């Protein structure tokens, strides 16, 4: 079902922000890398598969020039494209993209402050690779920027600006499994709780728009045409991506959900929230009715010692038997 691996201690605590943990599996090298943001820097840990070797690094995000930034990072995520892997950082100033080991910055995009009304916070948040060629990043104005990434080099350009959201973007997720026809490749979520499902390409097209019901959607995942969304009132909702239909509603947590993740081969969904609980859910689809089933498989609170999980990632273990392995990061 799931196996909790050895705990990895980061060098410093992680910020209390949504989706603040990214994992990169490097199967060829039997390594996994983890990153979490804290203030103006990113903690990166590389762990060997046998769980014996760890190497820590802390990246100070540079902004544009050589000066070390003092703006707060909102998220760090690895984006895996067919030809390359980039580490993308979002902050109050803009978006930075590095080679996957964080050694070289390949692109820097400054946010246009004038786009935002005065009195509103300005930041980028929400990162995902889509369509085998693009990296999508959200902003506090609700705009989603689509970057066209060449197979190598620094000639990255903004290929499109998606303007369906009116509130700050919280999370973006790409299809993790096999989407049925017309179900879209990408889902974007915002502070109001509105979700948009997109089909990626030269021009992104809107497949469906799921209206808000009064709660922030802080974390979202897309798997086999099913949108899994975590909300501020502790609910998880499952929607059909192609139509936007609600298929399941789970009163999952007693507090704001901070992170979701999904193991695509087994359909295990993890949720972590401010109530300090981590739940593992099993998702499945009935072949004839296409109804979505969800049940709780496991749950564990972390009491006392650590305040909460703000992000988790379920990762399929390529050297294991295909079951999802859950890792949790104690933070804060």
């Amino acid at each position, binding site marked *: 079902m799931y196996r909790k691996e050895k705990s990895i201690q980061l*060098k*410093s*605590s992680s*910020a*209390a*922000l949504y989706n603040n943990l990214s994992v990169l599996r490097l199967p060829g090298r039997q390594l996994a890398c983890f990153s979490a943001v*804290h*203030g*103006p820097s990113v903690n990166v840990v590389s762990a060997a598969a046998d769980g014996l070797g760890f190497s820590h690094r802390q990246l100070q995000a540079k902004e544009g020039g050589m000066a*070390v930034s*003092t703006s*707060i990072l*909102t998220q760090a995520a690895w984006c895996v494209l067919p030809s390359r892997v980039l580490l993308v950082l979002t902050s*109050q100033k803009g978006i930075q993209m590095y080679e996957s080991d964080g050694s070289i910055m390949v692109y820097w995009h400054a946010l246009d402050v004038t786009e935002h009304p*005065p*009195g509103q*916070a300005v*930041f980028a948040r929400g990162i995902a690779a889509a369509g085998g060629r693009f990296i999508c990043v959200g902003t506090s104005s609700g705009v989603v920027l689509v970057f066209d990434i060449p197979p190598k080099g620094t000639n990255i350009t903004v290929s499109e600006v998606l303007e369906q959201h009116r*509130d*700050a973007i*919280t999370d973006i997720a790409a299809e993790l499994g096999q989407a049925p026809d017309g179900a879209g490749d990408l889902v974007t979520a*915002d*502070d*109001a709780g509105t979700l948009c499902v997109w089909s990626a390409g030269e021009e992104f097209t809107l497949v469906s728009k799921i209206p808000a019901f009064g709660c*922030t959607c802080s974390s979202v995942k897309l798997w086999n045409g099913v949108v899994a969304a975590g909300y*501020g*009132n*502790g*609910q998880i909702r499952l929607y059909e991506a192609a139509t936007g*239909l*609600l*298929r*399941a*509603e*789970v*009163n*999952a*947590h*007693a*507090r*704001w959900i901070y992170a979701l993740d999904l193991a695509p081969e087994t359909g295990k969904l993890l949720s972590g929230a*401010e*109530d*300090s*609980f981590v*739940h593992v859910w099993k998702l499945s689809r009935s072949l004839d*009715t*296409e*109804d979505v*089933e969800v*049940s*709780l498989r496991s*749950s564990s*609170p972390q*009491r*006392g*010692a650590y*305040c*909460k999980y703000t992000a988790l990632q379920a990762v399929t273990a390529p050297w294991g038997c295909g079951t999802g392995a859950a890792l949790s990061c104690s933070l*804060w």
Partner: protein
Amino acid sequence: MSVRTLPLLFLNLGGEMLYILDQRLRAQSIPGEKARKDEWTDVDRKRVMNDIITTMFNKKFMEELFKPQELYSKKALRTVYDRLAHASIMRLNQASMDKLYDLMTMAFKYQVLLCPRPKDILLITFNHLDAIKDFIQDSPGILNQVDETFRQLIETYTCLSAGEFQLIRQTLLIFFQDMHIRVSIFLKDKVQNSNGRFVLPISGPVPWGTEVPGLIRMFNHNGDEVKRTEFTTDGNYVTPQREGSFDLYGDRVLKLGTNMYSVSRPVETHMSGSSKNLASHAKENTVPNPLAKEELNFLARLLGGLETKTPGGSETGFRLNLFTTDEEEEHAALTRPEELSYKVINIEATQDPGRRAELSRILGELEVAEPRPASSGKGEDLLALMDGL
């Protein structure tokens, strides 16, 4: 990140400061007739509370506070509270001031962390303001100022969305990140562990607007509910009774932000000591001048509204001790771990007679009713002063 965080940070920390000072002043007070010249009486206590609250809610100061802006640095904020605590006849030694600030910040951090809904931060603020109004209920003039601020809070914040409140909360949590000072009241009540981390309860009422966890509902393609299952977890949650009031007056329901100190529950802290966690906390900032110009204007307005109560030549200072004995206070000063030092800028430390005269002019006798407006010239003078340090 959120540019609307500063008023909430300032007012809540100020509220906690007043709770602590009130408790210590009561603990150290002597009945009027019996008091010596250097001992506290009830009259003195009320005077100190009035003076600090008057300064805190100064009109120009509040105007500056409510402008959309990023949070100040920890150093700048600490300096502001230093000045605030000395807005009256009361004097605090460095060790007592450090302890006061530790308690204030850990208490508010606790409240922010345990806040059920992000919007409840406003209820916590209202709890503090309700208590402040109680402290000055005999002074209608100051009461008016506080009500004015109350109204401004309602105007600014009640229309914000849950997402925006959460951003404010996240901004506050980032500000308080890595602070793990142990507070004995929290340790006794088992809301804080011996490693300084707070305990998140997994029982009690869920936030307003959240359902008790346990129900799964599944729907078919027509939107009809076709299946319903339940699950249990270790948590033991219940539905809340009612929502707190966001009006000028009302039952806030939430207990966070109310006064947890009393004469029988004294304030104490334990220094967490040098630990591995502290070694890795990020540098505050790399700018050589720790107080940027905007922060100095803020400070200048605070000083501009200050009615000085510096004791005359014949009066001895009225010193408040946050510790139980003078020896304890001295010992705390000597043993405070380096990494927990606040490195407060002491702006009175100037040798230049010309500049000292300028500062004296600012600190000179001012009418509280008509505070001398802080001109930009004053801000410039202070800036020059800082450059000279």
